[in-house]
């Protein structure tokens, strides 16, 4: 199954990258952007049926740093017969 993890800095934690990106957007003339936060996105191929708590543990132990980051897991498990809605669709957005 496919698992998407989004890791972001907790609010209040210095986000130097976000600052730099905001500066870059401003320099390009995009003045409507007022804030940018930068995080990590991970897409994992995991054996079907891997329990949620294993995924949580992977995040807490390795994929994220619980002291300064939080995370969000989206599972795309084909087995449970639920609608296959993609949380974070893959691929380039189609216009």
């Amino acid at each position, binding site marked *: 199954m496919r698992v998407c993890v989004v890791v972001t800095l907790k609010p*209040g*934690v*210095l986000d*130097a990258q976000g600052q*730099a990106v905001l500066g870059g957007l401003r320099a390009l003339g995009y003045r409507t952007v007022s804030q940018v936060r930068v995080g990590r996105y991970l897409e994992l191929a995991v054996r079907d049926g891997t329990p949620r708590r294993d995924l949580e543990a992977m995040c807490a132990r390795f994929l994220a740093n*619980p*002291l300064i980051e939080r995370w969000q897991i989206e599972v795309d498990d084909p087995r449970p017969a639920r609608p296959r809605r993609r949380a974070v669709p893959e691929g380039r957005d189609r216009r």
Partner: protein
Amino acid sequence: MSAVRAMSAAGGLASADYRELCRRLGRPPKVTELRMAAAMWSEHCGYRRSRHLLRLLPSDGPRVIRGPGDNAGVVDLRDGWAVAFKMESHNHPSAVDPFHGAATGVGGIVRDILAMGARPVALVDSLRFGPLDDPAARRLARGVVAGISAYANCIGVPTVAGELATHPRYRGAPLVNVACVGLARRELLARSAASEPGSAVVLAGARTGRDGIGGAAFASAELDPSRDDRDRTAVQLGDPLAGKLLIEATLEALRTGQVVAVQDLGAAGLTCAASEMADRGGVGMEVDLDAVPLREGGMTPDEILLSESQERMLLVVRPEAAGAIVSLYRRWGLSAAVVGRVTPGSRLRVRASGVTVASLPAAVLARAPAVRPAARPPADLRRRWTVPPVPEADPDRALLALLAHPSVASKEPVFRQYDHTVQIRTVIPPGAADAAVLRLGEVPPLALAVACDGDGRLCDLDPYRGARRAVAEAAANLACVGAEPLGVTDCLNFGDPHTPEVFWAFRQAVAGLAAACRQLEIPVVGGNVSFYNTSEVGPVLPTPVVTMVGWLPDVRRTCRAGFSRPGDVVALVGRAHPTLEASAYLAVVWGADAGRPADVDLAAHRRVLAVVREAVRQGWLHSAHDCSDGGLAVALAESAALGGVGVDAVVPDADRVDAALFGEVPSRVVVSLPDNALRSLTSLAEAWGVPVTVLGRTGGRRVRLAVRGRRGWAVDLPVRRLRAAYRSLEGLV
């Protein structure tokens, strides 16, 4: 009484300290004052348990310009140039978050050098971890190395030397010590004492956020994994880009001549910088927290005062230049604001929203009450001095095991991740010799050399001797590249000082450092103490680490550690009786940390180093390498592995073959040299009363070692296999 306890607990101050604070103030403190005192009186900021002992360290010398008590020590070089250096620990933050902990450690020590008005030109990292077969230790090691690499590379300061050792007693409590070396024009050296009442106080660099609040108190307490939540705010994040900009902007600000004093913001943030600068200068200071550039809204006065946000400096500036200095920082893309002014008197006054939240003599904060903990030697020390009977190991296997041990093995997988060539000074890069050598374009043909040493295993068996050995070894490392010591900065890593055995080891180590530096006439110009390095397995090995900076008169006359040519004579300078006591051989091959380490005879040591140094400077030597962990056999094998040239050698006998090969004792240096230089070396050595023993010759593709008076090769291995063992860290970090 319970009110006292409640008050002091709220502020994080012990009740005895709370009473002392009331006494000094002549009234109960305001809450903000209490929190400021709690931070400043933490062990980390206040050196409460170590100050009286650190006074023992010799800090004077003809070249010393600034000694301990300043942000970094400074020694004179030549032609108006001076070199600043200082080492600091970032152990606790690195245990919690290895990447950011180590990264901010680099940032912090760089700002100490910067605060002296020096441009950082080199970094040195000394690391300790639990055994790397443990995935948790490997993760720590990887994170720490990645963090150092990320920060140091980004600010363009080369990491040119370092150490890495592993031992079970560092499991869960890694040591991350980083030293920085900087260059300054003497006339541009900065002061950290505020003066000239009326001057503006400028806070420059990154904006102040909520990170790291309580960091000082945090580093002064043992790590408790269950207190995850409390530790959370103590993690600081670095912004190396801001760190780099801060270097350039601050050096430019100092060149204006309008900066009266400057200090970096480290532990206890603005509270520490303001109170220390005022106290050092015997002046007062007013700070208006409303003027502090903040990163986020809603910060309380206490949070602003104690924030440990990185990449900030506090400057005292002539009032008429304040505007220019502020815009200078802004031009570099940093924030800056006038946040106060220097006042007559001695009081630190802090206002927020028009209300005075603190008003107290700066000295109350900056001079924490001293504490003299009890000390007692460990009860089992004598037992541990007894070496268990061990059989003689197979020399080939023992040699390979020693070379592959992380403490001995090549650290290339580590320093390959560090930019060590930026600033185009690096003449001897990490790993190639016993010390790094940097050319000094400012004062050609002079060069600087840096080495870093510390051996917790030895210190655990005898902290006094172990500390002396660290100094001796650092000095030997410098001699091997032809350098003469300028000064020492040290980092003292110990467990909980309330444990009498821990404090005893600390006291012994300081005494050992002091004795060795005094006798070798090397001033200790700065350093740092880190207590509470403790985990589930108990306190870490007592680990004093010494960074020694030296100079060479001519950068072209230096020497590496690897055999560089076949057919050279291989000789041993210095002769002392090697012993298996406290040896790496016993530890690595037999799993026994046992025996009493040999002490170093400093008078003899000095003579050996004088001979080696002079021989290097005369250009006689093709390699020089001191015998350390693993004794003569490992030194010879390392020189062969580094140079890719084999050797046939006969080593002096001892009571056992393993003692002859792997026994340890300070003051021995393996050199290789062409035949025609041997006579010069021996007559020089004779003049100094130093024995030189010819061991054999370089050449071939094998390392073959025999013991004098015994038949056959004891060791016979291809250089290729030694190299493979020596590269055991590959892929681990």
